[in-house]
């Protein structure tokens, strides 16, 4: 676009945690309001400037969370004219960036706020809706399917069967991600971690061990988007949204088209990279949803960073760790930094900070282009965003 309406990110913020719990006392909506204010403040904007509101979450259900943008808009005291409550799981926020970008390009809103919050750790309420045994779930829940880990475990098992991928390969991802967390003072888990530690961490749902699984923490995050034209008058350095894509295939894992190949990631990644006009060699830093180690491995293959089946060798020898050839999940990811139920917004926040050059010890030097890819549900959905600094 050349009319000044190219979408940009002008503010990001996340809440402080200690031992995975919110430091401040506030309701889940209060935490979202606080990070929204902080993200807007980066740009010199305020809540009264917000006319686009996008959120997804698991709070207040049943009840106000059933209409999340409506309840959040009320709490914030604003009347948005563009809203999006798309919920495709943890990848929802990558889709929100896409949808906000389209609304901004179209002139449907001027300042879009994407926000998420969860106090699941403080409430000790890790609960993905309970997966009641209705509709498609009546054919899964009665069998004692561990959710969500069971579906990821079945995908891992299948990938191992087809390609010879090993538990050690998966552990490489957990270990590399921990090394990034050790460079991030805000990360929840920063103690040393070895491949053996992961292998000996206890089997949860074979072949996935405890340390193949993401953390369970609180967390709130916010992103502010506007147009390139509007950003000229703002005080933060804008990060351009160059491309985006999304897709989903199934809810019940028995309906997943191919357990060893992540079709939504393949589709979303292709759409986003073509829109941005970038190739894999243009990407300086990647943030890939790590609900489980296998999620990352399948995503890397589907996004085309390596060939199908070569994810194991690709992540070997700590290729994705600090100092490796492929800097990935530089905050410490969902495996070691935080994972408040839905993690996708934090991938975007870290990518924006890397492109701004704000990441201190973990800064990827010269990072100009970032790929962010979220996965939601049980490998159900994928959404990709390409970010660039000008």
């Amino acid at each position, binding site marked *: 676009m050349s009319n000044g309406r190219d979408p940009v990110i002008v503010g990001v913020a996340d809440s402080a945690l200690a031992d995975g719990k919110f430091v401040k006392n506030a309701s889940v909506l209060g935490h979202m309001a606080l990070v929204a204010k902080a993200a807007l403040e980066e740009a010199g904007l305020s809540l009264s400037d917000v006319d686009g509101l996008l959120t997804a979450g698991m709070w207040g259900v049943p009840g106000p969370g059933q209409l999340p943008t409506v309840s959040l808009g009320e709490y914030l005291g604003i009347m948005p004219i563009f809203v999006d409550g798309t919920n495709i799981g943890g990848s929802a926020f990558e889709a929100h960036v896409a949808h906000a970008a389209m609304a901004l390009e179209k002139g449907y809103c001027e300042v879009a706020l994407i926000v998420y919050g969860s106090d699941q750790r403080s409430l000790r309420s890790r609960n993905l809706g309970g997966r*009641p*045994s*209705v*509709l*498609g779930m*009546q*054919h*899964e*829940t*009665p*069998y*004692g*399917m*561990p*959710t969500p880990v*069971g579906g990821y*475990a*079945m*995908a891992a*098992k*299948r990938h191992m*069967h087809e390609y010879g991928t090993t538990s050690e390969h998966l552990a490489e991802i957990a270990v590399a991600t921990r090394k990034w967390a050790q460079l991030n003072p805000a990360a929840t888990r920063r103690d040393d971690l070895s491949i053996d530690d992961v292998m000996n961490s*206890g*089997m*949860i*749902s*074979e*072949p*996935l061990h405890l340390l193949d699984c993401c953390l369970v923490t609180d967390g709130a995050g916010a992103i502010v988007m506007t147009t390139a034209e509007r950003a000229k008058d703002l005080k933060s350095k804008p990060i351009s949204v160059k491309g985006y894509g999304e897709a989903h295939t199934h809810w*019940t*894992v*028995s*309906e997943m088209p191919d*357990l060893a190949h992540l079709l939504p990631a393949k589709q979303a990644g292709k759409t986003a990279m073509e829109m941005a006009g970038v190739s894999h060699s243009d990407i300086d830093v990647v943030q890939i949803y790590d609900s489980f180690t296998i999620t990352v491995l399948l995503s890397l293959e589907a996004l085309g960073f390596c060939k199908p089946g070569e994810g194991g060798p690709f992540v070997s020898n700590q290729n994705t760790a600090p100092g490796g050839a492929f800097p990935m999940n530089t905050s410490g990811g969902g495996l070691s930094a935080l994972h408040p139920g839905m993690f996708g917004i934090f991938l975007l926040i870290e990518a924006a900070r890397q492109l701004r050059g704000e990441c201190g010890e973990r800064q990827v030097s010269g990072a100009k282009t970032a790929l962010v890819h979220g996965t939601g549900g049980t490998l159900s959905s994928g959404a990709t965003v390409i970010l660039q600094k000008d």
Partner: protein
Amino acid sequence: MSYDKPLPVIDHDSRPYWDAAREGRLDIPLCNDCGKHHFYPRTVCPHCHSDDLKFDTISGRGTVHSFTIARRPAGPAFGDDVPYVVALIDLEEGPRMMSRIETDTPESVQIDAAVEVTFVKATDEVSLPFFRLSA
């Protein structure tokens, strides 16, 4: 002893399937237009989107597509079952379904293993189709 695990919430799409399971049959939808079976039961064929469907009694034979051995239960109701095998079964007729593999030796389950259905009574209304490794 009462059954304390989650039971299917049976609906109009799935009623004939669960009725058959109670009687020891595996009945799944067959499309009169494209000739393909599907699972789970829907009112519209997911292959060709026809609504001309009937329930068909199938063989109950299949192979293991993938599986997991649950070392932690999916909630306290399944605590006594641990370790147990949840599997995706590729039915001989084409569709894939989730089930449990009944076995005393979870480590003996392998991808591609041949399995056959067996029905496990939960309540007077519900029997669950589980699978066993074929002899």
